[in-house]
């Protein structure tokens, strides 16, 4: 007997951290209290993607999309929607410009979802990731069955190659080609590795995929194992993803119980099993050779390439290593075919890309769009534009390895090659939107700080170069910059790009180069005019008292922690710029708006 209602509760990390578990428990309780267990099924799903609006609950078949729920809203939803069939209007999503009209009942009509196309996230927000049957019900493990019984290993690799799928970890290497290298290298043992060491600031598509659809990764790795002749797989995942690890463990256990992992999979002659390896959170361990060193129990430092892991990887054996998002595409490619997949995207970048859209944007969250979607569509159509009606300044893609994209490139179709051409990169898909209040030098410093903290220290250009870049940026943002520093920034950045050993060092200076290219005048303003137009760099701010507005109350002089404000109630007050530490206390406390910051 089918259920009358399905309550889908997003149980991704973002929603979980804002009381999704409590909401879930309340639904269970309310349903039980009303003895509706046989009519209503409550499902904890993976991420819906629309994290800005979490916690999210979707009710089927009504297609009611409830957002920003609080645990106390549950009773009303059960009473109204489940029992009386009346959607609770006040809890529905409404787009920003549509305040108060609350008509967005149908998910398909929500701006955030309209231009999205979901392959990787196909099951996220739909199935219960802890139940293998739900994955199977949505064609899960059908691709594995197909390859084991209908396809030769070479046919599998051909299919992946013809799909045009490229690695989603950042570099965009053709996946099928990588697999074929491993297949062609003869060896007694080969390995399959899933790189789940997601580390770019703001990026969380891999975590969401693993949390929402762990079986898709297991299925894909098993398919690759069959294709290249490997019988063992490792998932290297950072220990900071406890929910994803828990769901992976559950999924691996279930797959083994169902004969989908282990010996003689589905009764074939193929054996394959998967183990989880936890990373300690070093960013560089996302670099494939460092990751493999870490799995082996060595210090996670990159190794020279060649040899590439496809030929000589884990414990010196041929190893296919792909990123989570890459893996998630595989079962769909096998089931729907390479030509179906190759129709999506641009000429050299096929399929979709998941982006973690954050920053000064109305609809932040996880989105999946066909390759070739423009930045404008992502930011203004899906993302709902810039917060508080501010001006778009730039988008940062590729995390600490990427660069900024200024407004002039808003209409560039996004794919691997176009992003590289404009000085950024796809990276793992972090996308941070900046507005006029963001200082470009300050943002660059943020990314540099990240790369400097995460450099393993092995090679000189990255270890020292990054640190020197950061020093120079610090100097510039604190008002001590010289024009000669710009040349030094450029010189070091170039040397890092050309002489660093691994991707971390080769790309760590990208934010510097791209911001200097597109926002060079902001650097100059910082240095020559001691000015930060976004008023972010505290050391460059100048606080002044406007005599025409000042009522000579003296409060500012009283609150100033360093005694930089002097004067008396007769003559009025002045700020000694040499003493001022730009803390802003005076401005905050002045009731008469007599203090300016410039």
């Amino acid at each position, binding site marked *: 007997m089918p259920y009358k209602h399905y309550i889908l509760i997003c149980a991704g990390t973002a929603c979980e951290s804002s009381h999704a578990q409590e909401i879930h428990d309340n639904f269970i309780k309310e349903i039980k209290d009303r003895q509706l267990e046989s009519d209503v099924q409550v499902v904890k799903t993976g991420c819906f993607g629309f994290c800005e609006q979490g916690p999210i609950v979707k009710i089927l078949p009504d297609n009611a999309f409830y957002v920003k729920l609080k645990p106390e809203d549950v009773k009303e939803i059960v009473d109204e929607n489940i029992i009386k069939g009346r959607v609770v209007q006040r809890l529905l999503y409404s787009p920003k410009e549509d305040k108060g009209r609350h008509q967005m009942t149908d998910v398909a009509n929500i701006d955030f979802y309209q231009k999205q196309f979901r392959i990787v996230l196909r099951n996220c927000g739909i199935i219960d990731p802890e139940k293998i049957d739900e994955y199977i019900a949505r064609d899960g493990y059908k691709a594995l069955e197909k390859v084991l019984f209908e396809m030769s290993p070479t046919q599998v690799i051909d299919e992946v190659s013809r799909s045009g799928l490229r690695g989603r970890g950042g570099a965009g290497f053709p996946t099928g080609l990588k697999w074929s290298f491993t297949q062609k290298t003869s060896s007694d043992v080969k390995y399959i590795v899933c790189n789940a060491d997601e580390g770019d600031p703001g990026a969380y598509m891999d975590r969401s995929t693993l949390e929402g659809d762990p079986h898709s990764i297991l299925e894909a790795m098993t398919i690759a194992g069959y294709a290249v002749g490997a019988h063992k797989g490792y998932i290297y995942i950072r220990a900071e993803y406890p929910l994803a690890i828990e769901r992976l463990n559950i999924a691996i256990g279930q797959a083994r119980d169902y004969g989908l992992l282990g010996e003689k999979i589905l009764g074939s002659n193929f054996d394959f099993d998967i183990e989880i390896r936890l990373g300690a959170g070093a960013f560089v361990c996302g670099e494939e050779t460092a990751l493999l060193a870490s799995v082996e129990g060595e*210090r996670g430092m990159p190794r*020279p390439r*060649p040899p590439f892991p496809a030929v000589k990887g884990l414990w010196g054996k041929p190893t296919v290593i792909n990123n989570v998002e890459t893996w998630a595409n595989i079962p769909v490619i096998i089931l729907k075919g390479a030509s179906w997949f190759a129709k999506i995207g641009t000429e050299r970048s096929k399929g979709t890309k998941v982006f973690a859209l954050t920053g000064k944007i109305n609809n932040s969250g996880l989105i999946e769009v066909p390759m070739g979607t423009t930045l404008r569509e992502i930011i203004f159509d899906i993302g709902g534009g810039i917060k508080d009606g501010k001006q778009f300044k730039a988008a940062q893609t590729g995390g600490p390895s990427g660069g900024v994209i200024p407004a002039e490139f808003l209409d560039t179709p996004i794919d691997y090659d176009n992003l590289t051409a404009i000085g950024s990169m796809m990276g793992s898909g972090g996308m941070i939107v900046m507005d006029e209040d963001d200082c470009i030098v300050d943002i660059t410093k943020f990314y540099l700080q990240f790369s400097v903290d995460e450099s393993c*220290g*092995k090679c000189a250009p990255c270890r*020292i170069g990054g640190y020197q870049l950061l020093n120079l940026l610090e100097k510039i943002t604190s008002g001590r910059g010289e024009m000669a520093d710009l040349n030094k920034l450029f010189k070091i950045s*170039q040397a890092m790009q050309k002489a660093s050993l691994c991707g971390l060092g080769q790309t760590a200076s990208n934010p510097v180069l791209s911001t200097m290219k597109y926002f060079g005048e902001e650097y100059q303003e910082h240095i020559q005019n001691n000015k930060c137009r976004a008023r972010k760099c505290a050391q460059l701010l100048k606080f002044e008292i406007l005599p025409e507005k000042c009522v000579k109350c003296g409060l500012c002089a009283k609150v100033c922690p360093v005694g930089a404000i002097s004067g008396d109630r007769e003559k009025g007050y002045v700020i000694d710029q040499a003493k001022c530490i730009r803390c802003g206390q005076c401005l905050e406390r002045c009731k008469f708006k007599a203090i300016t910051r410039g």
Partner: protein
Amino acid sequence: MQPKTIRAKINGKNIRVPAGLSILDAAKQAQIKIPTLCKHPDLPATAACGLCIVKIKDSKKLLRSCCTTLEEGMDIITHDPEIVEVRKTVLELILSNHPNDCLQCGRSYYCELQKLTADFAIQEELFEKIVKNKTKDTSTKSIVLEPAKCIRCGRCVEVCQQIQDVWALGFLSRGINMRIAPAGDLETANINLAESPCVRCGQCSAHCPTGAIFEYDQTETTWAKLRDENNYCVAQIAPAVRVAIGESFGYPIGTNLTKKLYAVLRRLGFKAVFDTNFGADVTIVEEATEFVQRFAHKKGPLPLITSCCPSWVDFMEKYIHGAIDLFSSCKSPHEMVGALAKTYFAEKNKIDPKRICVVSIMPCTSKKFEIIRSQEMFSSGQQDVDLSLTTRELARMIRQAGIDFKNLPDEEPDHILGDYAGGGTIFGTTGGVMEAALRTAYNMITGENLKNVEIDIVRGLQRVKEGTIDIKGTKVRVAVAHGLGNVRYLMNKVLEAKKNNQEPPYHFIEVMACPGGCVAGGGQPYGVTDDLRIKRAQGLYEDDRDQKVRCCHDNPYIQKLYDEFLGKPLSEKSHHLLHTSYIARKTYLK
């Protein structure tokens, strides 16, 4: 099978080289030396410094030549304005992370970083100076770690872990704070190098491109000893020193300078000059007797394992406790000379042993530790050897004294502890101890000398040498390993057989901690390669061939020593003065 050769181009020049060479090595065939601070010919590429970048013609991407194999048809550019500029910037970055202490640095003039800086004409400080980790670690009294001077090339870690299998040094922390240190160093767990598994072989110091790892310098202490008129200072030179010191004075590699060394030591103020080779002769007579007892008379366990290398002894005491009873109880040759100088020599010359100060000139950093390693190193009633200097320290003292080494006349050693047989001199190279011991053991078993005393199977740089020597129908199974990383293979077989009460796989094993033996010891002049090891060893084999007496037991001064003083080998007196014992030690002292 003919090794495959490949054709490629380097800077437009066609070259044919054996397949498998790195671009860096192949470029040498086109007369190009690509700069690097991390790649050492002894070690696999770590790809750390970033200086050896080259490009493939018409490609923008730069490759590290140290770890990229030259492939058929490659068209390599090793330098153009762009490459030179990037290299210079990387070098400037490295300098910004290195103190400007050249004038006060022991490595000055021999420093690879300093030399490269001069080549690139870097004359101003472009980037802000960042120097961290200022704590100096002098705990071993053999090797000094100065992390501030470290350029993180990783050679020391590679040599300590992969070549020597010691694992005392590793990388700690990351980013700009990354440093080489004993695991759990002074900053984190307060563990110093002496408390780590370090065996003081000094291979790290011999491979370090800068002054970050340096021998514990005792030249000043030596000068003080020489100046004190109460002291009767005597010196002795180890076998390997004579064929290496010349490199510091412009001689061809491997030149034997024994007699100039005697002359120079006298001019430095030593009252008597002895030769450790004499001690080697004594060692052989004692050790061969030990071997014959265990092998022919079944008194004691086999295999007998040589004990003249203090790093090997330390390694065994820390890592291979099951082998303690197999070790020869002989002290190392310079310790024997030290003990005899303060007893036999002192008595004969009526000198108060308390006044005698024995200074050993050694190719070794470990000997600095050995001289105080146990109570048995004080067998004469005094510390038997007072100071141990490396070859590098001696070269510095010669220059400090302003002695024109090249034009010195040849001189002879002081008798009774100075004259040696050929067998003693080859102690300085891998296989030499085994060869000298077999010459004497053969005589002890058969009563006659070998017709051909040169035993080829124990010579050369093969990592492990195994073979059988026929002593008039009796087969002696011998094995030689050099480089501690090659020891496990032998010892696993030995311990396995011991565990199962089986016939031991070998009867006699020689181990020297440093690859190539003492000729490439941790205290020898810089820049060691296999080519250099071979040439230095060649110098010793020639010295052996030049000696009238080839077998240690035939050295008339040895016979005199036993007649006048010791009695016979393994006598009570020789046990007291010339032998030692071993204990199991913890790998980490903390």
